[in-house]
């Protein structure tokens, strides 16, 4: 029974690949082009390593208790050594453990921000672009308002008003992040609703929602993914910025921004305290930007592969 099912699976796979030969060719071409760009490949590998770190961190950080609330005031600001790779902070906690665990928290927050922002942005953008008219006017003027205003201020004002905490910071950043997606989707939508296949779908009686979600949005997926891959780094950066100002995650939870801000008081004597979190943050943002840059190049219809 197992053999028969695996055989049929293989058959189906073969059939599928024959049916989708052109798409597969596209993907192969894309992978080839992507691999030509060394920076993007570096970015991708860095992202993979960072993801691995974020996922497995709780299993192997040397001092997990230092992340959840232990303090050792008698071991403050110890320089890096074998015991504490990145030294200790002003409460005697292991900077390495905290920096690593901060990666995890940043990734969680980054993912949530993007999911919320994309959900809001794509939905509003799709509605605005598809229906046009006054619906479009209302939504896009709102988007204009949000885009006009430097996001960090609004995020700051919201978190200052709601109080500090991961949840509030995430909310504040999500609220300021959706307009970009809204505009992206709306512009594409305006173009696409004039296309033949949409008219065709209409003709055979498909509902508006079905057309938006089944026919149009999948075509925008790549554009959204590329934007998201670049945005992820910035979402992480903005969370750290909130932490730096003092409205980010709550202690004792670690966060790069608040570590940098706390550590700078001890520079240069205890340079390790804010240097390592800063470096980690830089590497993370850089990794996602390199990746996103490479992905965007792929989407650029004019980009050619030189053989």
């Amino acid at each position, binding site marked *: 029974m197992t053999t028969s099912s695996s055989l049929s699976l293989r058959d189906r796979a073969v059939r599928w690949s024959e049916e989708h030969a052109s798409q597969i060719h596209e993907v192969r071409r894309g992978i080839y082009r992507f691999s030509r760009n060394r920076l993007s490949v570096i970015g991708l590998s860095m992202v993979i390593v960072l993801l691995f770190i974020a996922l497995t961190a709780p299993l192997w950080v040397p001092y997990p208790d230092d992340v959840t*609330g*232990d*303090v050792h*005031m*008698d071991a*403050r*600001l110890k320089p890096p050594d074998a015991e504490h790779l990145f030294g200790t902070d*002003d*409460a005697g906690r292991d900077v390495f453990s905290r920096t690593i665990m901060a990666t995890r928290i940043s990734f969680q927050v980054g993912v949530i921000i993007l999911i919320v922002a994309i959900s809001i942005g794509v939905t509003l953008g799709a509605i605005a672009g598809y229906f046009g008219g006054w619906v479009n006017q209302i939504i896009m003027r709102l988007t204009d308002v949000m885009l006009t205003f430097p996001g960090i201020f609004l995020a700051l004002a919201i978190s*200052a008003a709601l*109080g*500090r905490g991961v949840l509030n910071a995430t909310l504040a950043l999500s609220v300021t992040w959706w307009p970009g997606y809204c505009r992206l989707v709306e512009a594409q939508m305006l173009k696409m609703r004039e296309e033949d296949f949409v008219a065709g779908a209409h003709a055979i009686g498909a509902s508006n929602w079905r057309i938006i979600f089944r026919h149009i949005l999948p075509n925008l997926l790549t554009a959204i993914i590329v934007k998201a891959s670049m945005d992820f780094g910035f979402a992480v950066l903005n969370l750290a910025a909130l932490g730096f100002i*003092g*409205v980010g995650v*709550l*202690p*004792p939870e670690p966060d790069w921004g608040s570590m940098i801000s*706390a550590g*700078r*008081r*001890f*520079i240069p*004597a205890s340079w390790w305290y804010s240097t390592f979190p800063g470096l980690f943050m830089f590497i993370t943002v850089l990794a996602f930007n390199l990746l996103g840059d490479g992905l965007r190049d792929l989407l650029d219809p004019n980009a050619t592969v030189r053989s």
Partner: protein
Amino acid sequence: MTKNKFDPTGKILADFREGRMDRRQFMKLMAAMSGGVAMAGVPALAAAKPARRYAASALRQLEPKVLVYGASQDIATLDPFDRTDYSINAVIRQVYDRLFRFEGGWPQPVEAGLVTEWGVSDDAAEWTFKITDQAKFHDGAPVTAESVVFSYQQTLRAQKQRSSLLAGFLDEAGIVAKDSQTVVMTLKTPYASFDRLLAFLEQPIVNMELAKANEVDGDGGGAWLVDKDAGSGPFTVSNWQIGSVYELTAVEDYWQGWPGESHLSGVVWKKTEDPGTRKLGLLSGEFDMSDTISSSDIEEINANPTTMANVGYGLLGGYLKYNTQGGPTADPNFRRFLAYSFNRQAFIDSQQGYVKMMTGPLPEGVPGYDPNLDPQYSYDPTKAKEYLDMTEYKDGGISLDFVYVSGLDFEEAGGLILLDELQKYNITLNMVPKNWPDIVGACTTPESGPNISFIFDQFPPLPDTWLIEKYSSKSWDRPTGGSFQACSFYKNEEVDGLLDQLRTTTDPDANAAMVADIQKKISADAPDMPLYVMANVLGMNKRVKGFNYFGDISADFWRLWIDESQ
């Protein structure tokens, strides 16, 4: 800029004016403009080059006796009727004279300022002050009793923050000028320590003629005085541009003279809110003085050959205030458990030892302070457990909010130490950093009051003020709600009764006995955890001489001078 012979932009600009502009020319214009900016940059770089070795000594030649002060706070206003921040007071103290000087060391003695002699009636209600005939305002007019009366009355009229304590004893009609050099103040309620209160409040004496000449809507010239001066002090306001420049210039022939070997020719107040930058400015020689230095920077500043840090303790006491009206902290035994649970040594370590731990409600320096108060709490896990077992929370499983001011690392350290300890009893401490306005708002009623809040209090060195503002139920159980000082919402009828009598008990011995008694009763109830008196750390360059700590965050610039040989 002088006109160059080579002028490629001239023609293009002419074309542009006459409408002969196409895209090619537009691009040329852009190119010419960026070229122009680049060329302007070259001489600038050249000019900047000789000063490459950026050192204070090079700039010192420009203004050798001006002191540059790196301050943690901005000076929003110089309105003498509405002074709140230490920064405002630090400058107003230099520009205006007060009845008393209050800055000749610590603990503060009351020294005569504009007052040459003063006396009080036997019932401690009528106070008479003789004003010197030597003092002159900066416009040359003599300082008279009328100006003193006007200054106090206007402060009471303006009803701003600084008038609160005064208004409890005095109203406008109670201040009278008997002759040109005599002021009489008649109190609503007798108060034996009124002169000390006046000294602490430091009401600046304002030039009445000048202020009235610029009066708008009965503000006594307050709006005009926001960035101007109408004082008689050792310095005048010379250049005042909010947000960027604050400059004072010395009055060479100041009526009281200058106490030092020499004196400053001016002061520049440089607002630098970031503590790291304040430290760097001091180390690099850009600042001669920086206030509110973090305790972790003291060592570095002292190790630097040209700088030193002065650590002084004033009257800024830090308390962990428990909400005694609700939640687990309503149980006195739970509060005692907390008091015995706080690892004080860890806290001292976290502040590099630059703390003065408190033993009871009153900090050292306030009369009545008792170093051997009983009961006195210390870190004692055994006793803590005993008290916890007397409560319904002996198995833990509860969580408490620890509210503190966002960004204050010493408050955060206190919370983390408590959090670490409470984990052992299965009690969760939620760290809740908030903005200061939030905390002030939360302290209004017991319902909105946090379980535990880390709050700093500062009052005049008069025990009655401390005890009444913090522990009388009248300070929170009232229509407008509580102040942040009363954030433990303490209500003990016996203590309330004693506090009511405290100010009217004029006999010094009886008063002192009452103060001691009240402290004992409060300490036994543990409505808060008196933790420590914060150090005022002032970093300074060793060139600066004449510094004398007087319990303030800032310095008295009048006493300072710069040793130019260093």
